[in-house]
């Protein structure tokens, strides 16, 4: 009986890193969107929070698409 611990560890490591990354980026995106609304109410510039939100959410989508690409390519 041989269990491929390295592969199981890889599933754990990769899943943890990807999910934490996605959650942090997504939550960051929501924080930035909140900041954007707040800025709009103060009638301040919304450029910075809009850019931050766009960046976070774009990064989220990229992570997911890259993951799917790896599965298809492998």
């Amino acid at each position, binding site marked *: *009986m*041989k*269990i*491929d611990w390295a*592969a*199981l560890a*890889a*599933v*754990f490591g*990769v*899943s*943890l890193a*990807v*999910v*934490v990354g*996605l*959650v*942090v980026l*997504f*939550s*960051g*995106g*929501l*924080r930035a*969107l*909140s900041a954007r*609304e*707040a800025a709009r109410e103060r009638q301040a510039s919304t450029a910075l929070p809009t850019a931050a939100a766009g960046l976070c959410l774009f990064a989220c989508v990229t992570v*997911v698409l890259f*993951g*799917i690409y*790896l*599965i*298809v390519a*492998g």
Partner: protein
Amino acid sequence: MDASLLVIIVVVTALVFDFTNGFHDTANSMATSIATGALRPRTAVAFSAVLNLVGALLSVEVAKTISGGIVDDARITPAIVFGGLIGAIMWNLVTWYVGLPSSSSHALFGGLIGATWIASGADAVHFAKVVDKVVAPAIAAPLVAGIVAMLATYLTYRLTKRARKSVTDKGFKAGQIASAALMSLAHGTNDAQKTMGIITLTLITAGTLAPGSAPPLWVILSAAIAIALGTYLGGWRITHTLGKGLTTIEAPQGFAAQTSAATVIMASSHLGFALSTTHVASGGIMGSGLGRRLDGVRWGVAGRMAAAWGLTLPAAGLVGALAGKVASLGTLGVVAVAAVGVGVSLVIWLLSRREPVRPEHVVDEIAAQAETHKVAA
């Protein structure tokens, strides 16, 4: 019996199994999104069907695990595969009828292993490979999904605590739709593969394909279409599932749990680990319960579920062993197994129609998962 006729029967039976798998599992990926109002039922079900189809076409690693390794393909016949398949279907139907949540994937492995063991001897089953590619991932993957989901849920709540409610309400609904989509995709990459693997194995044992072959295109396409159709038509069950109080799961939790489960499934699919998507989804939901509140899981219910999981492989193995033995006796054996299979299915279908609203008949896997989850106080 003519070998090619038997192969056709096995292929059709495998596709029926695939269809019921999709039928059974729609709720796993889509129920939470419908419960939180993120998606309308009909949209959700169609969406899930398409993504299952796409997922099934993405990878064939799990199919290769099944067709090339867990049993010795030189020592089994299509009749034995047929017996294993019927064993799996019987076990699935009976557990569905009595409301016991169980994994169709493990039923399939159990049936195949049992049938091979009894008909061709214990050494025709590659137990080392079974432990490495099926049993170890079966234990590890739900734990991994649980731990990851726990951390993800904690982080999600922590990081968005100061975000505006108007933003998070909309945001997490969108996030939930995206994570449900991933879950459907992941389901296709793992569950549809099992049918492809079984059909490929049958073709190898019949001598149509060389040992170690990857599934041919028509096998990939037909398995993908069968699971997608099953997913679409399984939608009606969701309304029943919703009656079970699934709404105890909040949108951010659903987002965290589904993202974790989908990621674990896809990473495992990539390495050829054939796991139960249901078990991983349950692990994710329990983990997200713990991540939100440390006493957020009903351990009694969780323990009963784990016991049912442990029972599936040996029980389906037993039924598969019996069916495989009889089917390998010859034409009459195959006919007998098929007749018993159709008869039992018919009886269960009639029984379930006679009392269609008794809750234990519609206890779905997702509902059982939700039961492990304490109502938010």
